[in-house]
C-alpha cells in the first residue's frame, strides 16, 4: 500500500512558506514589502522563511534599488513550481483518500 504521507513536501508544512509560494505562483515577481503586507507577518519571520525557500532552490531573489532604498523581489523557480504542484496534488489525494 502506498504511504499517504508520500508526496507531501516538508518545506511547505509552514503556513508562511506555503503562503509565499501561493502568492508567487500567480504573480511574476513580488517585493518583500508586498509579501509582508499580504501575509501579515513580521520582517524577521518572513526573512527566515524566505531564506529556507531560497536554500531549497524554490525561489529566485533579485536585489534592486528604488532610489537609495533596497527593493528585493522574489519569484519562483522551475523547481519551486514543480514542488508546489506536487504538494497540492498530494494534499488533494490525501483528502480524497481519507473521505
Amino acid at each position, binding site marked *: 500500500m502506498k504511504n499517504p504521507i508520500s508526496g507531501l513536501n516538508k518545506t511547505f508544512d509552514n*503556513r508562511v512558506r*506555503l*503562503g509565499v509560494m*501561493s*502568492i508567487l*505562483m*500567480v*504573480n511574476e515577481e*513580488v*517585493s518583500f514589502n*508586498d509579501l509582508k*503586507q*499580504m*501575509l501579515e507577518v513580521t520582517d524577521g519571520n518572513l526573512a527566515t522563511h524566505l531564506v529556507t525557500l531560497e536554500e531549497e532552490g524554490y525561489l529566485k531573489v533579485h536585489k534592486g534599488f528604488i532610489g537609495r532604498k533596497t527593493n528585493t523581489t522574489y519569484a519562483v523557480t522551475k523547481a519551486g513550481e514543480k514542488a508546489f504542484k506536487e504538494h*497540492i496534488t498530494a*494534499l*488533494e489525494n*490525501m*483528502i480524497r483518500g*481519507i*473521505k
Partner: protein
Amino acid sequence: MSVHNQHLESLEDIKKLMNKSSRFISLSGLSGVAAGLCALVAAWICREKVISYQKAHGLGEEHLREPLVFREGYEALAKDLILIAAVTFIAAFALAFLFTYLRSRKAGVAIWGYTARRVMINVLVPMLAGGLLVWRMMQLGVYGLIAPACLLFYGLALINGSKYTLTEIRYLGYGQLILGALNLWMLGYGLYFWAAGFGLLHIIYGIVMWNKYERTSSETVTV
C-alpha cells in the same frame, strides 16, 4: 479526521492568498453609482448650456442635435464644457475613491497595495492614449468624434483593468465599447451616449455589484 481538516484548511489558505494577491477586490459598487450620478448631473448641465447657446442665436431645442455653428460665444461655450468635463472627472474619481477606501478599510486591506497599483497602471495606459487622441481632436476641431472616442477608450481601459480586479467590470467595459461604436454612426447624439455610458451604465453596474458583494457581507457583519 483532524488531519483531513488541516489539509482542507491549507488548500483554502492557498486559494485565498492566490486570489487576494492577484486581484484588487475592494472596489465598491457604490463607487460606480457615485461616478454615474456625477456624469448624469454634468450631462444635464452641458445640455442646458448648449440649449442656451442655441437660443442666443435664435435656434430652438429641436436644433440641439445639429452640429454647433461657430458664432459669437462659441469659444466661451467650448471652454465651459471642457471645464465641466474636468470637474466631473475629478469629482467622480474622488467619490469613487472614497467608497472604495471605506470598503477596503472595512475589509482590513490596504488600499494602495500591490494589486491596486497594478489595476491603476492597466487602466491608466489606455486612458492616457485616449486622452491624447481627444486632446488632438479638440485642437483640430473634430468635436463630433470626442464622445465616441472617450467611450471606446474608457471601455478598453476597463477591459484591460478587469484582469486585476473584479472580473465583472469587463462587462461594463463591453457596454462602453458598444455605446462608443454606435455613437460613431450617430454623431450628433454624443451627449446622450455620454450620459448613457458614463452615467447609466455606471449606476447599473454599481447597483448590481453592490447587491452581489457588499449587501450580504454587511448584513452578516451586523447580524
